[in-house]
């Protein structure tokens, strides 16, 4: 990798205190993602993947640790400065239905990032939305529909259209296909890979589904109890897992039996 990493996380720590009890969610996480790279974050529920993603997106604040994005200290930004950086890091959520304002139309959902950051003059926004919908292979007439009127696969495409609208350098994909039908998953994953090849965007892919991780990610980091316990090339790590957490996950994957 000859370019500087898009995202660099060093010794990130985060704990939550609720009614006097403290839970440590992140115990010093280190990772880096480069341009046009997909790093998968795998691990059982409760391992801290979601907390890590939320820290990276600055939805919550880490306690200590380094968070550098394109060389900027992301953890130090606040208010308007933080909002100014937002176009560079976007997210696709697990449940597309929950990720949209129920009263919004597809057009408004996709237009929001363009409008909020004034990236496109008002007169050209409708056309820009049309282009984005076409980029994710959605029919143009879907623009006036509402999220509950379209299928799960289409909803996720809308979410992707919204995420790429600002041409981000990094997109956090939080279980992007887990809530979709099996037959639709390949299309969405292929779309994501196409977009990466076109634009050079980096992905942080969170997935509990190791098959998806192996198919789409070059590198994987396995989390367990707030720490990264194993990382490396995805196909290698999954073929020969070293840590107990990875081993348990690999052994837990159901295998198709074709002999009666």
């Amino acid at each position, binding site marked *: 990798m000859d370019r500087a990493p898009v995202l660099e996380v060093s010794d990130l720590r985060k704990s939550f205190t609720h009614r006097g009890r403290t839970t440590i969610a992140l115990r010093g996480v280190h990772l880096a993602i480069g341009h046009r790279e997909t790093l998968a974050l795998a691990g059982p529920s409760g391992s801290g993947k979601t907390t890590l993603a939320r820290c990276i*997106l600055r*939805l919550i604040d880490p306690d200590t640790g380094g968070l550098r994005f394109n060389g900027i200290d992301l953890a130090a930004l606040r208010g308007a400065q933080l*909002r*100014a950086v*937002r*176009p560079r*890091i*976007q*997210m696709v*959520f*697990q*449940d597309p239905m*929950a*990720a*949209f*304002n*129920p*009263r919004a139309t597809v057009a408004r959902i996709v237009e*929001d*990032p363009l409008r*909020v*950051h004034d990236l496109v003059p008002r007169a050209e926004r409708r056309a820009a939305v049309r282009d984005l919908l076409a980029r994710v292979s959605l029919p143009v007439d879907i623009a006036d529909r509402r999220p*509950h009127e379209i299928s799960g696969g289409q909803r996720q495409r809308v979410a992707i259209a*919204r995420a790429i609208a600002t041409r981000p350098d990094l997109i956090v994909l939080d279980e992007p296909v887990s809530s979709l039908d099996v037959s639709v998953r390949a299309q969405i994953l292929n779309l994501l890979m196409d977009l990466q090849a076109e634009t050079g965007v980096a992905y942080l892919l969170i997935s509990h589904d190791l098959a998806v991780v192996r198919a789409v990610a070059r590198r994987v980091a396995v989390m367990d109890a707030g720490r990264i316990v194993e990382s490396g090339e995805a196909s290698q790590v999954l073929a020969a897992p070293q840590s107990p957490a990875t081993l348990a996950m690999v052994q837990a994957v159901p295998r198709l039996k074709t002999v009666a």
Partner: protein
Amino acid sequence: MKILRAMILTGEGAAGLGVLTCLVLAALTAPLFFPGDPLAIVGPPLVSPFSDTAYPLGTDRLGRSVTVELIYGARTTLLVAITSAATALGIGALVGTLAGFFGGIVDEVLMRITEAFQTIPAFLLSLAFISVTGPAIPTIVLAIALGAWPQPARIARAEVLSLRERDFVAAARVVGMHPLEIAVREILLNALTPVVSLAAVIVAAAVLIEAALSFLGLGDPNRVTWGSMIAEGRTVLRGAPFLSIVPGLALVVTVLAVHLTGRGFVAAIGARRIEA
């Protein structure tokens, strides 16, 4: 709107809306069909209802047409009820959203204020307020709203607290929306739905409180209202009970219609949720 259509499809919504529409139409067209002062004397006193076509519902002690008084009374009742309900909902929704969205000290302060108002029975609060400010339409509206706003405030706050944690709010933050825009566009407008279903209850209560205030002589003296009609009829209750019964029935029908409309609204919202 789809909700309106869905409401009409439910029997309750259709009945409620039907009656309310008639009421509103009657109230709006009153000056057209019955020009002049409703409190003007038009005929002999205490004519029974349905006995004379000139005064379909009879006349009161002073010879004023009950029909005319009833329809003009509708104007005041609806005006006061709707305005006070809107005010209560407006104040409540604002306070509740601010408390829920900002949390912390803002939430604490606003909630203590809300509780303070809630501990005083609404009617007594209105009574006390009117006694101090004097009866006039604007003060009556305010008096009723003061007693009614805590409930929508609580509901709005509860909705906002739950909406705050939802993914689409996080998505709005990730997109980079300004917190104020998130508060209004993403949260407030979505929090309103349960608050609006409270509207029917508040309107119904407002109708009754206004009638009670008028009955006690604390209503606007220049206006005829159903409450004042009932109060007037009190003195001749034995001999001409219709003077109190007719406006009383009007109150019952109105409150019932408002309740049915509210239930139709809730059913329509619920049905749409299942559809989605």
